[in-house]
């Protein structure tokens, strides 16, 4: 009798595909080739226009920068959580809460009344307050599953996923109810925030806002410093790698988890607040139907691609935003090949998909050897 078994063992020797940049670039290139082959097999696109489009996507960087910045901020938020084994899949919800906090401050809080003047100082105070409240609400939203995890040992992952939907519903409730706009022409949505409360557009780079650029740099650098140069950073890393050692060194594991949850949620909330003040200017109804751009989920890919290494956040964010932007651009080349009236949209997600599959496979083979054993 033939017996087939799949033997998976953890590697103890190094393999050639050991280094992160090699895996990252390798996955990207293999993923691109694979998705090209899929497209070629289905509609027969010529390689030249495929790779030219990819090149043009990278060259026209202004379109990329906007999503790059948000993915960097959110990717950092998720990464620091991953460091401390706090699986923050709830960044999407924290991001929405950040939006709610920001719009509350600039539109509905008592602060909005007496700061509504046009002078720069009061506008700056208003914006800062909005961003901070957004961050605080994000932190609070992340703290709930954090505390549940700490005190009841219930996994934070399902709770966070559910809380993302609660955040959507909360936003929709406010948008359709107490915050419903007056100048929306019957639409269910809030009014737009006033001009003075909006973030500053960078002249020449209209897709960017000064505040967001600064925030991305500050967040990235400070998280890097926290992780590598503070006791908290050490404790977080300990928590992620060897929680027993953390406990036996006399530290309270629970306090570390709570601080990781707070920091992570705060940054995600910050991103949401900035999105609202800098780009969206209002809350839409049915926000869960992709109106957040699903940044909170996409950023998980960024954190995952970066190997939980802060230095790789930006390269990973570049790859993810380039691939999604590429997905849009390739629609143009594809539409001539598809029968008229048939949607090219389906192809736009293919690149991230294939790249991630290759990446995941390489990463698994990096850590584990997989063998098919056939015995007679």
């Amino acid at each position, binding site marked *: 009798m033939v017996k087939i078994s799949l033997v998976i063992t953890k590697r103890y020797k*190094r393999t050639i595909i*050991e*280094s*992160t*940049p*090699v895996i990252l*670039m390798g996955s990207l290139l293999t993923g691109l080739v694979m998705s090209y082959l899929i497209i070629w097999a289905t509609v027969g696109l010529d390689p*030249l*226009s495929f*790779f*030219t489009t*990819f*090149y*043009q996507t*990278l*060259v*026209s960087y*202004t*379109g990329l920068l*906007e999503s790059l910045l948000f993915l960097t901020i959110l990717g950092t938020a998720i990464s620091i959580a991953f460091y401390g084994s706090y699986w923050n899949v709830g960044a999407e919800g924290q991001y929405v809460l950040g939006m709610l906090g920001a719009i509350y401050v600039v539109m509905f809080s008592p602060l909005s009344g007496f700061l509504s003047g046009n002078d720069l100082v009061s506008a700056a105070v208003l914006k800062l307050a909005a961003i901070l409240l957004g961050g605080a609400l994000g932190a609070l939203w992340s703290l709930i599953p954090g505390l549940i995890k700490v005190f009841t040992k219930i996994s934070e992952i399902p709770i966070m996923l559910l809380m993302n939907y609660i955040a959507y519903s909360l936003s*929709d409730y406010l948008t*359709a109810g107490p915050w419903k706009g*007056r100048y929306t*022409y*019957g*639409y*269910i949505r809030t009014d737009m925030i006033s001009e003075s409360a909006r973030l500053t557009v960078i002249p020449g780079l*209209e*897709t960017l806002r000064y505040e967001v650029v600064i925030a991305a740099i500050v967040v990235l650098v400070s998280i890097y410093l926290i992780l590598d140069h503070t006791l908290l950073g050490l404790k977080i890393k300990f928590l992620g*790698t060897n929680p027993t050692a953390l406990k036996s060194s006399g530290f309270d594991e629970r306090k570390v988890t709570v601080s990781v949850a707070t920091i992570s949620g705060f940054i995600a909330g910050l991103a949401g607040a900035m999105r609202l003040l800098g*780009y*969206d*200017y209002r809350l*839409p*109804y*049915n926000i869960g*139907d*992709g*109106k*957040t*751009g699903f940044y909170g989920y996409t950023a998980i890919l960024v954190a995952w691609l970066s*190997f*939980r*290494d802060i*230095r*790789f956040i930006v*390269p990973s964010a570049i790859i993810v935003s380039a691939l999604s*932007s590429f997905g*849009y*651009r390739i*629609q*143009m080349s594809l*539409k001539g090949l598809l029968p*008229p*009236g*048939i*949607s090219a*949209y389906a192809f736009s997600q293919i690149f991230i998909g294939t790249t991630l599959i290759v990446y995941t496979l390489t*990463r698994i083979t990096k*850590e584990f050897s997989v063998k098919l054993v056939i015995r007679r």
Partner: protein
Amino acid sequence: MVYPVVEPRTMYVLVIIAVLIAGFVGYFAGSATTGYATVTEFKTVVSPTTITYYPAVAVSPEKIRAAWIYVGPIGDLGWSYMHDLGRRVVESLFKQWLETTYYEAVSEAELLSRIDELVRAGYTVIFTTSFEFMEKTYEAAKKYPNVMFFHCSGYMRWDNMGTYFADLYQVYYLNGLMAGALTKTGKIGYVAAFTIPEVIRHINAFAIGAKEVGEQLGKNIEVYVVEIGAWFAPDKAVDAARYLVDVVGVDVIAFTEDSSAIVEYAQEQYKRGKEVYVFSHYGPMYEFGPDVVVSGQLVRWEVIYADILTKIRSGVLNPLNLRNVDYWYLLNTGAVELGAHVFENGTVMMVNPKFVPKLREVVVKDRLAGDKISVFDLVMRRYEQMRRAPILQALQFSALTHELENLTYVDIGGKERLYLVSTEFDPFIGPLDGWCKYTGTYAFTEYCKKSDKVSIPAGVRLGHADLWNMDWFVSWVKYLGGR
């Protein structure tokens, strides 16, 4: 646990090498294709100097590159599909001088990025086809003064931003006449995306038609509205339809949602032995429900697109003079049509043949002419009455002339005296009674700013502003809220 074993220095070297390789590959790939000429062209377009010479170019561009941005996927078979069909018509028709492209399933948040990409790729005419795109399109228009923007269904305009709309309310009225004849319970359902003035107008027109016939047949016509809060949400639409059928007990449904989901739902009900009749919306959806689709509303955006592009090509429209361009095309222009199916030869099936005998059997009195007539003939008579208004189309082009659209006659003196301006018939001629959906400071019309009830005196024909801002329901419409 995973930690990188590479020195940071090695990593940066590798990243730089990878970028260089990508750059070289891209450069050679780029220079090897004919498409490279396009890149050079776009550089000219975005350079700031362009603005100074634009007026000269605007006289009559040799070639036009036009792009469409759709809110849903073009596979929705409704709204976005029909816009894309319009694009395909003008692309084929004007292929000597027109090049087109499109983006589909674009959300409001990413609209500006998509516009940036299109402008950079050298597109100088951009159509944005969702009300939600209004503010962002306006922002883009100010950012790119040498690009012409046309926004569908909005009201914000600028020197280089015009608006256009093909409105279906007259077609909804015709469908309402049929609904009134076919309903057994007198309860009619309407699944609305948002209760914005456009949709309110459609619901009212449909309700007016249903009552005109239903009342004469001794039915107590009531129209129940459920608002789903999204333009493209097949699941929510079906949920709402199910609620209307199972809980409220309606047996006819019309809707404003950009997919064929409700039609498919009704067909499914038919197979289970429950008859729910539907009217297809925007696209030809007859094929999804041959047993249940009575008729529907069709749109021909190409009528407007062809007009806009011809006027750009001949230099009539340019980025300096779009401020008053506001197409408001009705049944008289052919931009909208009654029907749910387009035959292979391009002609329209106005009413599903399955329902024609039923509609011919039911006889009612025409409240205008006073004679007895079958519902089918009444639909055709009204259709003709709203089709004929030769001078109206000229007035429907500009925001400056809309106020003349509801003039029934103009006195030109001499022996001719009265010259017919507007259509012979319109559903929105008083007497009409209604209640305000939006009141006080939330209201859009003068009626609802003053009171929460509306009463249009007999013989008064609502004007463009009344229709455009409609914030009140006729009294037999019941709003059931959001689902």
